[in-house]
C-alpha cells in the first residue's frame, strides 16, 4: 500500500512483514525509531511469534542475535556509528559462523569528535567483516532491500547489512509502497537454517580452528560473497516478478549510455546527483551516474562494464580513508584497472555536511574538464583548516583541535540548522 511514512517506520513495517522471531537492539541515533516501532508491534501482538529483547549494549545486541540465529530463529537488529564499532567483534563472529542475521545500519559518522549526523564511515569500517552490505538510495529501496536481505542472507547462510543514510532517510517522510504479507510470503520462504543448536541433537558451533584449516574457513566467506554476486541480480529479478518494481541489484545506472563523465556514488546522495545530472544534460553535458547498491560483495565486473564507455569518472563518497583518500574510490579504481580511465575522488558530506546541488554543479563541471585534483574535499573550509595547522606550527601547546575549529568558525555548539 502506498503511503506517506517516515523511513524508519517503513523499514520497521518491512522487517515485520519478514517475520523475524528475535529482535534485539540497543538504542542509538539515528536508528532508534526503527526498533522502537518494531518493539511497539511486538508488544501489541501484531508481530508474533517474536521476542523483542532489550539488551545492555550493542555488543550484547549482536551476541544475542548470534545466539538466536544459531538456535534457528530469524534474527534482526539495527545500529549505527559507535554502536556498530562497539559490536565489531561480534559482527565478525556472525559472518565467520555463517549466521544469516539481518541488520539495519542507519549510517552515521564516527567520533571523535562526536557527531550524530550522516556519513558512511560506520558501515565501511566493517567492509572486510564478511557481511554483505547493501546501500539504499531512498526509503522505497530501504524497504525492498530488507526483504531481499533476509532471502539472500538465509540462502547463503551469511549476514547482511542494509545501510540507509541516517536522518536523511531514516527521518524523512516520503511515499513508500509497503508490500502486502502475501507478496512477502511468496518471495521469502521460511528460514531453513544450515546449522541449528538443538538440545536433542547436540553439536558445537564455533570451534577453534588452527593454521591447518583457518584459511579454508575464511575463504568460504569470500566464496559466499562471490555466490552473492550471482544471486543478487537473480533475486532482484524475482523481486520484480512478485512486487512489480525494479529494486536493488548490484549496480544501477542513470543516463549512462552516451556519458563521457560518470559520477559514482552510494546511498541517498544519488538522488541529488541525478537532479544535477538532469540539469547539466539540459545544458548539453554528457554526464551519467553509476549507483552502487551492493558494496559487499563489490561488483567489479559490473562497475567496469558501466564505466567502459566513459572518458572519466568521479567517485563522490561520504567516507574518508584517512591517509589515502577514498574508500569506495579504491574499489572503483580496482574495477577499472588497465583501462587507462581518468578517475577522481571527492570526499563529501562527512558528519552530515550538506551536499548542495550548487556545489555538485561546480564539482561535476571541473570533473568534466579534468581540472580536479585526484582527491578533493567538497566544501571544505580551507581557512579553518589552515588556521589550525598554522596554530600547530606556531605553538606546541595548541590545544584541542575540534574546539579550536569550532571557535575559529564562530560556532558555539554543533546544534545548527542545515
Amino acid at each position, binding site marked *: 500500500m502506498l*503511503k*506517506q511514512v*517516515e523511513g524508519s517506520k517503513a523499514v520497521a513495517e518491512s522487517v515485520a512483514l519478514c517475520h523475524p522471531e528475535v529482535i534485539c537492539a540497543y538504542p542509538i541515533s539515528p536508528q532508534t525509531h526503527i526498533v522502537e516501532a518494531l518493539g511497539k508491534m511486538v508488544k501489541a501482538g501484531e508481530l508474533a511469534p517474536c521476542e523483542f529483547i532489550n539488551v545492555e549494549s550493542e555488543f550484547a545486541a549482536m551476541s544475542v542475535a548470534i545466539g538466536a540465529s544459531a538456535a534457528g530463529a530469524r534474527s534482526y537488529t539495527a545500529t549505527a556509528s559507535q554502536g556498530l564499532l562497539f559490536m565489531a567483534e561480534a559482527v565478525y563472529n556472525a559472518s565467520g559462523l555463517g549466521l544469516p542475521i539481518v541488520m539495519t545500519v542507519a549510517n552515521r559518522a564516527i567520533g571523535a569528535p562526536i557527531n*550524530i*549526523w*550522516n556519513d558512511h564511515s560506520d558501515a565501511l569500517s566493517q567492509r572486510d567483516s564478511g557481511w554483505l552490505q547493501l546501500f539504499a538510495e*531512498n526509503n522505497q529501496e530501504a524497504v525492498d532491500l530488507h526483504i531481499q536481505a533476509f532471502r539472500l542472507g538465509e540462502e547463503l547462510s551469511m549476514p547482511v547489512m542494509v545501510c540507509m*543514510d541516517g*536522518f*536523511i532517510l531514516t*527521518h*524523512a*517522510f*516520503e*511515499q513508500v509502497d509497503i508490500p502486502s504479507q502475501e507478496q512477502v510470503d511468496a518471495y521469502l520462504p521460511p528460514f531453513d537454517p544450515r546449522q541449528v543448536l538443538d538440545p536433542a541433537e547436540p553439536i558445537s558451533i564455533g570451534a577453534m580452528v588452527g593454521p591447518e584449516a583457518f584459511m579454508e574457513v575464511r575463504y568460504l566467506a569470500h566464496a559466499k560473497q562471490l555466490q552473492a554476486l550471482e544471486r543478487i541480480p537473480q533475486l532482484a529479478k524475482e523481486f520484480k516478478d512478485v512486487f512489480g518494481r525494479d529494486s536493488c541489484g548490484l549496480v544501477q545506472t542513470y543516463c549512462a549510455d552516451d556519458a563521457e563523465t560518470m559520477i559514482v556514488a552510494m546511498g*541517498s*546522495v*544519488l*538522488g*541529488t546527483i*541525478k*537532479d544535477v545530472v538532469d540539469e547539466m544534460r539540459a545544458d548539453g553535458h554528457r554526464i551519467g551516474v553509476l549507483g552502487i547498491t551492493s558494496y559487499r560483495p563489490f561488483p567489479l565486473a559490473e562497475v567496469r562494464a558501466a564505466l567502459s564507455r566513459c572518458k572519466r569518472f568521479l567517485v563522490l563518497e561520504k567516507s574518508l580513508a584517512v591517509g589515502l583518500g577514498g574508500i569506495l574510490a579504491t574499489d572503483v579504481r580496482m574495477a577499472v584497472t588497465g583501462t587507462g580511465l581518468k578517475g577522481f575522488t571527492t570526499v563529501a558530506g562527512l558528519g*552530515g555536511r*550538506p*551536499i*548542495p*546541488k550548487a556545489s555538485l554543479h561546480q564539482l561535476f563541471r571541473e570533473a568534466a574538464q579534468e581540472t580536479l585534483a585526484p582527491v578533493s574535499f567538497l566544501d571544505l573550509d580551507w581557512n579553518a583548516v589552515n588556521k589550525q595547522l598554522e596554530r600547530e606550527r606556531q605553538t606546541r601547546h595548541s590545544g584541542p583541535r575540534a574546539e579550536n575549529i569550532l571557535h575559529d568558525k564562530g560556532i558555539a555548539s*554543533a*546544534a*545548527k*540548522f*542545515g
Partner: protein
Amino acid sequence: MFQVRIHGRGGQGVVTAAEMLSVAAFGEGHHAQAFPSFGSERTGAPVVSFCRISDREIRLREPIMEPDALIIQDPTLLHQVDVFAGFKHDGYVLINTARSFDELGLGELIQGHDPAHWCTVPATEIGLKHLGRPIPNVPLLGGFAAISGIIKLESVIKAINSKFSGKVAEGNIAAATEACQIVLAEKQAAAQGA
C-alpha cells in the same frame, strides 16, 4: 517544486508540522518529502524542518536553501536566526504572532513584497483556546493552506485525523480551521488594500 521551511523551537512541534504537511500534500496526490534539520533537538532550542511538494518524484536531499514559503512558529527567532536566508522575493511568510509586522520590526523588510503573501496568525493563542496547550504547529498548517493555496484545509484536517483521534483531533481541527479563516480574511484585506 514548492519548498517550505518551518522555523520554531524544540517542543513546538516543528518536525511534526513538516511531516503532517507532507501527509496532507500526499493526500492530494502530490509527491512530498518532509525532514528535520537533524539537530540535537532540545526544548527551547531553535529547530528547523523542511517540506518539499512536487508533482514528480522528489530525489533532492539538500536542505531547503531557497524556500517558497516560511512558517515561523516563534517570532522571537526573527532576531536570533537568519530565518529569511534564501527566501524568494515572491514567496509566502506566515508568522505566529498577535502583533503586526511593524511591531515585529519587519515593517521595512516587507516593503516591495506582495502583502497578501505575508500574514500573521496568533497560533499559540488559538492552540491554547482549542487544545489548552500553547502548541502553534497545527493551527499554522491551517493558515498555510489559506496563505499559499498549495494544499486545501480539508487535506490538513485529513492529516490531523491520521495523526490524532478523539478530542485532540477535534481541537486541532477547530484550531486549524480558525487559523485558516483568519489568514483568508487577512489576504482579502490585503488584496482590497492593494
